């Protein structure tokens, strides 16, 4: 970085400008005459090589750490939305799911591949489900969730604002479409304890959902969107709802269902008794059950590690490439015309 102390651009006009003025206007003069001291980041080949090298050296270890963390996570995925539909209904899944007379119970067997250390997180994963549609996102009232019926202005909730002339709590499409499949896990005929509490972000429970707000007039309409809520439990404790209401960014998303607080051993077979209530068939959505362990970075996600590694590797590669080019065609630095000539083609 070369320091370019006050260049001498408009010397003529300048001398008069600050002849009558002490410090302050001298600074101002420098400001207006664009003579502020400045350092010029000059991208010499050596600097570029060093910067790339440095980036590479830092990134690759970080990537390795991330990748290792991700590798240590055991994750089991089980898609069940098709197989839980009886063969006879496979051609008309929507009719099956809409027919309340048919039992929706379904049994799945999951084989544990590797030892899974508690806590084991149970997620449901939906695909092709656009929770980020902007009209869907808007169809809720955060104020009502916090204050309940006292809060009247719920126009944002339309079309799920009123039913039979009465307000709906919680109103809006998001709540209306609450996911309502349920899972029970059985190992060797003993039901595994699954903790369904504390699955939502603390901030949501404490600050966004009212402690004294109870569901009211919910899912009483002719069209049932999804799960129902116990009207005697305040919203702040309806954690399934809270999780569901934190809308996802992408059409493929996971939401936390509960936590199994026992280790699962390799080669164990887990029976999952699930109730396949939620209608994803009408829009071709997929449903999966996910069991995963955790690490300090979160769940299984190779992306960060790979990205870091790739970036770091690329940096080192570039630094070597530049070094080779530089050794082959060194150019004297400091020749302004040449330096410029080089730059004009590259800078903008």
């Amino acid at each position: 970085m070369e320091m370019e102390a006050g260049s001498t651009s408009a010397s003529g006009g300048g001398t008069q400008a600050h002849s009558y003025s002490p410090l302050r206007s001298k600074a101002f003069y420098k400001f207006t005459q664009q003579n502020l001291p400045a350092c010029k980041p000059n991208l010499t080949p050596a600097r570029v090589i060093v910067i790339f090298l440095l980036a590479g050296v830092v990134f690759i270890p970080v990537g390795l750490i991330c990748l290792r963390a991700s590798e240590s996570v055991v994750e089991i995925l089980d898609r069940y939305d098709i197989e839980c539909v009886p063969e006879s209904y496979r051609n008309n899944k929507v009719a099956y799911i809409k027919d309340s007379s048919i039992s929706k119970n379904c049994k799945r067997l999951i084989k544990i591949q590797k030892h899974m250390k508690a806590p084991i997180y149970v997620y449901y994963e939906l695909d092709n489900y656009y929770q980020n549609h902007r009209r869907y996102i808007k169809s809720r009232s955060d104020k009502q969730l916090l204050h309940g019926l006292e809060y009247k202005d719920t126009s944002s909730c339309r079309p799920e604002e009123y039913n039979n002339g009465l307000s709906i709590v919680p109103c809006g499409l998001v709540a209306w479409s609450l996911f309502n499949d349920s899972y029970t896990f059985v190992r060797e005929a003993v039901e595994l304890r699954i903790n369904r509490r504390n699955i939502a972000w603390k901030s949501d429970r404490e600050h966004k959902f009212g402690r004294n707000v109870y569901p009211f007039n919910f899912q009483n309409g002719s069209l049932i969107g999804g799960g129902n809520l116990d009207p005697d439990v305040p919203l702040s404790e309806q954690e399934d709802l809270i999780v569901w209401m934190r809308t996802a960014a992408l059409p493929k998303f996971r939401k936390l269902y509960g936590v199994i607080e026992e280790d699962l051993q390799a080669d164990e077979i887990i029976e999952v008794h699930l109730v396949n209530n939620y209608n994803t068939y009408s829009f071709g959505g997929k449903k999966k059950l996910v069991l995963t362990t955790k690490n300090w970075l979160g769940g299984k996600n190779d992306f960060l590690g790979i990205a870091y590694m790739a970036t770091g590797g690329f940096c080192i590669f570039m630094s070597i490439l530049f070094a080779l080019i530089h050794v082959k065609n060194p150019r004297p630095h400091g020749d302004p015309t040449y330096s410029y000539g080089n730059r004009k083609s590259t800078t903008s």
Partner: protein
Amino acid sequence: MGGRGWERVQTVRLGGAGAASVGVASRRREAAELRQVPSQTVRLGRVQPQAPSHRTIYCNDREANNIARFKGNSISTTKYNVLTFLPKGLFEQFRRVANLYFLMISILSTTPISPVSPVTNVVPLSLVLLVSLVKEAFEDWKRFQNDTAINSTPVDVLQGQRWESISWRKLQVGDIVRVKQDGFFPADLLFLASTNADGVCYIETANLDGETNLKIRKALERTWDYSLPEKAAEFKGEIQCEQPNNSLYTFTGNLVIESQTLPLSPNQILLRGCSLRNTEYVVGAVIFTGHETKVEYIFSDKTGTLTRNLMEFFKCSIGGEAYGTGVTEIEKGQVQRTGKKMNEVNRSDTAVHEKGFNFDDARIMCGAWRNERDPEICKEFFRCLALCHTVLPEGDESPEKITYQAASPDEAALVTAAKNFGFFFYRRTPTTVMVRESHVEKMGNIQDVSYEILNVLEFNSTRKRQSVVCRYPNGRLVLYCKGADTVIYERLADANQDIKRLTREHLEQFGSAGLRTLCLAYRELTNDLYEKWNEKFIQAKSSLRDREKKLDEVAELIEKDLILIGCTAIEDKLQDGVPACIETLSRAGIKIWVLTGDKMETAINIAYACNLINNDMKQFIITSETDAIREAEDKGDPVEIARIIKDSVNHDLKQCLEEAQQYLHISGQKLTLIIDGKCLMYALDPNLRVNLLNLSLNCSSVVCCRVSPLQKAQVTSLIKKGARKITLSIGDGANDVSMIQAAHVGVGISGLEGMQAVMASDFAIAQFRFLTDLLLVHGRWSYTRLCKRFYDDWFQSLYNVIFTALPVIIVGLFDKDVSASLSKKYPELYKEGIRNMFFKWRVVAVWAFFALYHSLIFYYFTTAASQTGHNSSGKIFGLWDVSTMAFTCVVVTVNLRLLMACNSITRWHHLSISGSILAWFVFIFIYSGVMTPYDRQENIFFVIYVLMSTFFFYLTLLLVPIVALLGDFLYLG
């Protein structure tokens, strides 16, 4: 000039040089014999005869004038009033694309399909508009205050038999007003009387045309007596004159007094904005008021762009001997170009440098001329300088304190020179000139000599010379003459071939050094000869028809058999560093055209002096001063004149173009085109235009002389449109305004001249040489800045106005890629700009590509990474968590990218960039920390705290900007 109608020739002095001595009026006035006719502006082409509509003004009779409902004298220059401010101001604002864009976005955001709430768009837009409107309002308020101050300036008006002071605004047409010395004229006045003898007054028109020399106005003899209020009250004239118009130098009208009709000329008109000088007071009748005055439509001319209009006596040649040791700028330039080192000439003690005189030669200073070979001719030389002029001395009659009022600075320079040689002209009476002569009889002897001036044969452009006939106290009769070398040499007696030859050599030397030369000559007259001639002269002078022509003819009779004394060389001081500047600019591949109102010789001189032309160049001259054209003009048939000029211009253009192509192909010699205004008028004809364009584009420099302001603009737009080149106009005078506005970039020079040019321009600089800085340094910088801002402007406007705006501004303010000194050192760098290097679509495309690349990185990296749980309790990010993370990455990246785009970094950069990032975090902390009471989507509530409790956030924040910038960095590297 056939003297038809109002066609007239005037000097347009502009673009730099003009001296009034070249100024001429084809119509000679009845001005006092000893005074030079005030210079006038020329408008080529003819003024249409006045429409029959005219106004009749009853002087000193308010009731009679009330019927006509003349407008009041108050003026308003404000842009808005209380009612129009909002609509007009908003309209102005929305003419900017950016504002319009945001307005559109805001309108869209109010529709239900919009994903964002309108507030986020409306608030920044209103903020921007508010600030601009407040600024507009403030400026207009200043203008209003200014107007009020002007409108309430007091002026003396005749009320009954006394002068009463009223404000300008209350002045009405027909009022008789008194203006005191140094006062400004409150309206366009008809000059009735002054305290000076001969009904003369002196005015300065600097406010109108920037000319600082005094002009003489003369009242009609019939009205001379009305200077006292008692007398003036009796004045009951009736003025019939044209309706207000914008022609500054024409006026037609009649004054009817007691059924006697007297014609009025511009010589009796005092224009609003001019000021009175050297006259105790004048009395005048108001004819045009307020916005009808002529002050409002300014076009004129003047000096100072290239030259300082400061003439300095620099060298001379007396009796075949050259004097003066100074070295001109142009000579310095020439020497420097050949690579030789300048020998600094040590100035001797005798050297004198004052206004108008910059001369050093010990051989003739302080009476030393007595020891020269021929002291007698030296004496004649000095006397010629001291006597042959129309200068007025002013102030104390001592050499130090006296100032000379001359119609042109070079006349003053010559008189100043005489003073310094010991021939001090200190007093002028109508018939005599008093000179205090030193060292004449013997060294140290000082005596006052009174020369009787018998006749003055004035300067005009056809004569190109000026003579006086004077009688020495001892009865000796001499005619002194000074003028252009061509005319003087034609009239010399057949003797002293040596002196003639030597002087001619000196003339050439001086000329090539960029000096303006004049030849001096004298003739001894006998009484008989003089008396005979004087009779004819008086006759001619009193003739009523063709007086000018007859006077010229009479002058020819006596201005012959002259004896050459020598010549003078005056330096028309160029502004500092102009030749260097011009050379630098031409090295930068910039072509420079000089459009000037000067006559051709002056223009060529200046072009030489400025390095625009040198002897190595092939010159093409297209002029209307050819015999054929002159002949046609003498015949006076306008159709024929037009045809002949057009033919000759057409022929010249073709021939020049052919030759030019030959020269370019064969010798690669540099070419230059010199064309005068009259020819230009025809050359700009659509049929010939193409040839003109082709020819001029082949030339490295073009000089257009005698051009009118309109033609300046025409030429500018010819190049702009015809050749599709970027044009920059620079000028200082009001007459340059049209040209400045026609060009892509207008530069106004602020200086002694009025500010009209500056106001009309995009940039203002104080002197021409700063143009180098402006173009090469700041121009480049802003060029590189502009193209950088392109990307960021759009980018940020799509995302957010606040978090990234400040750094962009800072970059806009401070970025420089090459240091100032380097830029000047390597003017070739500017060629990049000329070739639109930086601003090409390719560059924009590159930025757009990187914008796309960045957005992809932001989106996919943040979303791909957020599929699974991200903290130790396995909880999942929602939409808003991911988006907040992405936006944080965006803010960080954009700011860092900006830092990378900077070619230099000041502490302001650091401050603004880290400030912007910090501002984002502060904002998001607050925004997500509070719940607002009204119904709003609490999307972001607590998000940032959630985010910041995860490792994942930091890892992503580290990764994404770096990956995003990696591409840019690679590209830069």
